[in-house]
């Protein structure tokens, strides 16, 4: 809007204010300074015209995954979206995550994700291996390590159309973050649970995913969720369920624990 001295200007913001019964986009003209991120602007609103504006955040450094919201319709971390990615005269619209019930303003009830986390069978330690005796090669842990970069921002869970557009699928579908957790454990060199791929398909809704990659697009950790977790899990499920060649190969060249 109006530019003033030393890189400060006023920007037109629209922030969704409301609760689970009703709500609307409220207009604000807020000061923006050089180097700021959207969360700074929300905090400025809080400290000035809207003391009770609800927003969730912690680290302000893209590490905790608390400040997820939607900015101009795109799921983003508020603390990692720099203001200089918008034109000075652009209207910046900030809304809560759409897929989860709203509590107030920008804060949503993300308990769906904790429920799903609980449904994923935990790491099963190998029998007879004492603490301190775990031996794993770096190349063998790297794939799972990529998935463990996840900061549980739930942006992927929020964006995935399977539940975003279809509330009724929430029952059967674990969502990309938790299907990826299955992949992480399935690729863990010492997990003794076994056969997580078929389980993912039969119990956690892997088949709902149509690999349209929105989860990968929004992941702030740049985890290749679809390419490195979901598709390999689909392939592993096929290995177990539908591929006679693999079955035959396993019969002939059986190698323990490959």
């Amino acid at each position, binding site marked *: 809007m109006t530019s003033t001295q030393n890189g400060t200007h006023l920007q037109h913001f629209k922030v969704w204010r*409301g609760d689970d019964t009703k709500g609307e986009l409220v207009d604000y003209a807020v000061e923006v300074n050089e180097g700021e991120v959207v969360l700074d602007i929300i905090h400025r609103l809080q400290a000035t015209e809207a003391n009770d504006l609800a927003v969730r955040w912690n680290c302000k450094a893209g590490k905790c995954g608390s400040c997820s919201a939607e900015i101009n319709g795109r799921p983003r971390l508020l603390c990692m979206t720099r203001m200089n990615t918008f034109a000075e005269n652009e209207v910046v619209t900030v809304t809560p995550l759409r897929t989860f019930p709203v509590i107030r303003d920008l804060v949503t009830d993300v308990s769906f994700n904790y429920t799903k986390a609980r449904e994923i069978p935990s790491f099963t330690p190998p029998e007879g291996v004492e603490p301190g005796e775990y031996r794993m*090669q770096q190349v063998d842990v790297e794939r799972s390590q990529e998935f463990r970069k996840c900061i549980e921002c739930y942006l992927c869970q929020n964006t995935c159309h399977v539940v975003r557009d279809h509330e009724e699928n929430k029952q059967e579908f674990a969502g990309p973050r938790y299907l990826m957790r299955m992949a992480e454990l399935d690729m863990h060199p010492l997990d003794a649970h076994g056969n997580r791929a078929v389980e993912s398909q039969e119990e956690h809704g892997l088949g709902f995913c149509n690999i*349209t990659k929105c989860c990968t697009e929004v992941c702030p950790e740049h985890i290749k969720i679809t390419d490195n977790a979901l598709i*390999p899990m689909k392939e592993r499920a096929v290995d177990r369920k539908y591929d006679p060649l693999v079955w035959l190969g396993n019969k002939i060249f059986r190698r323990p624990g490959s």
Partner: protein
Amino acid sequence: MSTTTDTSGRTGAGRATIAARTLRTDRWWLPPLATFVAFVAWVAYATVRAFMQEYYFVSEYGYLTPFYSPCVSVGCVEGSSHFGTFLPDVWWLPYAAVSLPFLLLFRLTCYYYRKAYYRAFWLSPPACAVAEPHARYTGETRFPLILQNAHRYFFYLAAIVTLVNTYDAVLAFAKPGGGFGLGLGNIILVANVVLLWGYTASCHSCRSAVGGRLNHFSRHPVRYKMWTFVSKLNTRHSQYAWATLASLAITDFYVMAVSAGWISDLRIVG
């Protein structure tokens, strides 16, 4: 596309009441639209060509278009068939009927193309954070889409067809009259085959088969190397998918143009 309105499933259940289908301000509808147009155009061209039963072979230099490889119909012109002729010559049966259906299925079940057409044709979703217009969604959990899981079989078959294409391209260096020949056509045929290999080898099923299935790479150093290589290609799978669509069309068009006598092949040797 952008005018479709729909309100199903997106509010209620305590969600924030936001009426707009999406609040995205960028031109999110452009990529799916572009994909849609490109696919429709390509399929139209390919269909016409597959049933044309003409201009698919340049007998002078041995150029065979990939759309007719392998040419196994009794109608195939002399010199164009390297694997015998056994299919009847009827108008509704493409001369390469033993390979085309599988190539089609290979691409139809390809993870990348699935993404592309689910977005562009089925709008499921048209773009990220843009609501899809369907009231219900079951993805690939049931018939018929559960058959997408058969992708790897088409991969195995497509790999064989790509071998055949490679054979064609190599054979084209030997002029039917004898002796070595090199023309622009050869270069196009080879470039197409290289891209086809790039596409085929970067397939997700291939990545899984060469090593992705393993949990202990350290015990299989060779397969780990292969997996690493395929993984690198795999990050460009979508680019290969588009590049091969283009190269197939270009190769075919070039062969057609030379064969029909619209242009003459640019010769370098012989």
